[in-house]
């Protein structure tokens, strides 16, 4: 479904990814593992087209990523990352904006579903009326999760989504994502709790780096 083929990325003369290859099958849950700075988040940003590889190819549904396919990918992939920012203004207006996009117009905005998700992820019921800048880091992460779940996407790029949460909530979020057999997920996390799940396939980035 998603394939990285001999990817090279360097930054200021230092390789972040060197001759890196990885293939992710549909419905797989892949956990990228390794010290910080080894290129886990870079891999997700490459697939989303925020960074371009110096060499190597990325395939999505068996087609090489190009200027047309990238826009389709961005409509299929749910990206939740600590490294992204939601913006400013009321939470309600932000959700309205997201649902105003042409690419999302076929999905009806369901206030029932929002309410259920807000409750499930233990956010305050009045969060819609709050300003984004008033939210804590953990609340913003969960709001991003709620957003992509509203968009009914099936492929998830989850970059450190549990780092700001307390233990109980961590478990809840992890189970929520790993127990859905239909979803394809690439997970970047330092939390060991992800590992304890049998459905997770571990990719050790250190090993693949040493191999190259």
């Amino acid at each position: 479904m998603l394939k990285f083929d001999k990817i090279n990325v360097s930054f200021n003369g230092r390789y972040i990814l060197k001759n890196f290859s990885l293939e992710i099958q549909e419905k797989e849950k892949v956990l990228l593992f390794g010290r910080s700075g080894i290129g886990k988040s870079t891999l997700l940003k490459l697939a989303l087209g925020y960074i371009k590889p110096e060499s190597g190819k990325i395939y999505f549904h068996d087609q090489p990523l190009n200027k047309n396919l990238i826009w389709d990918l961005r409509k299929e992939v749910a990206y939740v990352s600590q490294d992204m920012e939601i913006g400013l203004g009321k939470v309600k207006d932000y959700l309205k904006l997201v649902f105003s996009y042409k690419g999302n117009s076929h999905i009806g905005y369901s206030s029932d579903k929002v309410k259920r998700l807000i409750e499930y992820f233990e956010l305050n019921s009045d969060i819609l009326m709050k300003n984004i800048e008033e939210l804590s880091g953990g609340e913003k992460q969960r709001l991003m999760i709620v957003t992509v779940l509203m968009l009914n996407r099936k492929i998830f790029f989850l970059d450190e989504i549990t780092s700001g949460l307390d233990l109980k909530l961590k478990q809840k979020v992890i189970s929520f994502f790993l127990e859905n057999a239909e979803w394809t997920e690439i997970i970047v996390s330092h939390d060991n709790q992800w590992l304890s799940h049998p459905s997770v396939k571990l990719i050790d980035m250190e090993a693949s780096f040493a191999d190259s």
Partner: protein
Amino acid sequence: MPTVDISAFSLALCFLLLLIPIALSYGVKLKLTYITLTSALRMTIQLFLVGLFLKYIFELNNPYLNLLWFILMIVFATSSVLRSTRLDKKTFILPSFTAFLVSNFFVLLYFNYFVVSLSNVFEAKYLIAIGGMLLGNSLRGNIVGIGDFYNDIRKNEKTYYYYLSLGATRLEAIIPFFRKSLNAALKPTIASMSTMGIVSLPGMMTGQILGGSSPLIAIKYQIAIMVAIYAATTLSIFLAIVLTLRTSFDEYGILNRNIFCEPKK
């Protein structure tokens, strides 16, 4: 009554007023003495040259020459915007110039033909004086408008990327930034429209009154020029951003880094 001329001697007397800031600067050690003197000198020389030049242009009143002068003013305005916003000259000069030319020229001709009802819309006095006022004001708006727009996207790249990941088209992801910068750029013009006459008597009105016009004519010109400035400013910022979008983002919707002039490392 014609305007009283200021003789060379009287102008010299006026320069004596500079002794106040100079004395203060000396007393409080502001260290502004040198720059005060050189700036006053530069102003004097520049304005004398422009005065001579305009006198000549007004006497000739050749439409082509007037137009050429107006276009030259636009070239200066464009390069001044790019210098203040630190945007790359090579990428931006042509689209910004076009934006300035189209918007200011359109509003200016409309103004001269429909508002002032000139038989010759290229009349030097109107083309250059009114054109200069439009340009000077849309210049300020553009520095804020186009500069804020690109710098804001760069500063909030994480938000911009986030919108893209949520399925926004390039345009959909850009629009919040577009609104914000256009808003910031137009607010000063809107504010000065609404306080006009109360907080300040605009330079144009003062000039006309001293030139012998009735205050009633002067206010009508002032109202008309403010509306024209607002229209030209809005149009020029809008066009400047729209015309530069294509080259400023790549096919993946990512902002090109080389549109910013960075200090060399």
